[in-house]
């Protein structure tokens, strides 16, 4: 699995802890990493993902349907699941502020063995680490 993930575009290092089942992925400094691809690559290597968390920097925008989203670069964004933390980000919509967030991008639904690749990943903001 480590080699499989390491071959994905934008991945710099992969650290696997067999004891607690944690996989740490560090993206390349200037690379674009695609979390959905990492999920697929993990499943393809015969392991199921229970949870995926990330730390990301980006701008808060509103998507076409008026929901908050984290814009990372020009062509990558994640819709934000509304919660108490995301309410604090409303004021930053379309401002030039860049925020660093820690959030949950995927959690395996109870009873399901595999993620549905047709469902886009949504970001549940757990913590706002920095506002610039």
């Amino acid at each position, binding site marked *: *699995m480590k080699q499989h993930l390491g071959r994905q575009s934008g991945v710099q290092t992969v650290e*696997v802890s*067999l004891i*607690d*089942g*944690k*996989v*740490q*992925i*560090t*993206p390349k*400094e*200037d690379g*674009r*990493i695609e*979390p959905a691809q*990492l999920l697929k690559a*993990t499943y393809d290597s*015969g*392991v*199921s*993902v*229970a*949870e*995926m*968390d*990330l*730390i*990301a*920097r*980006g*701008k808060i925008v509103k998507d076409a349907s008026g929901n908050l989203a984290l*814009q*990372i*670069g020009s062509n990558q964004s994640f819709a934000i699941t509304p919660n108490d933390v995301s309410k604090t980000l409303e004021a930053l919509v379309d401002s030039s502020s*860049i925020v*660093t967030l820690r959030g949950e991008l995927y959690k395996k639904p109870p009873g399901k063995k595999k993620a549905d690749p047709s469902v886009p990943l949504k970001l549940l903001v757990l913590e706002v680490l920095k506002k*610039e």
Partner: protein
Amino acid sequence: MNKKFALLLLLGCALAPLSQPQIKHIEMRVEGMT
């Protein structure tokens, strides 16, 4: 004056990658790993 400007430009270029929007880290919890 030009020297100061060049220094500022150099500093800006060095810091630019740090301020780019990007995914900094991903952590997964997996099941079924042997």
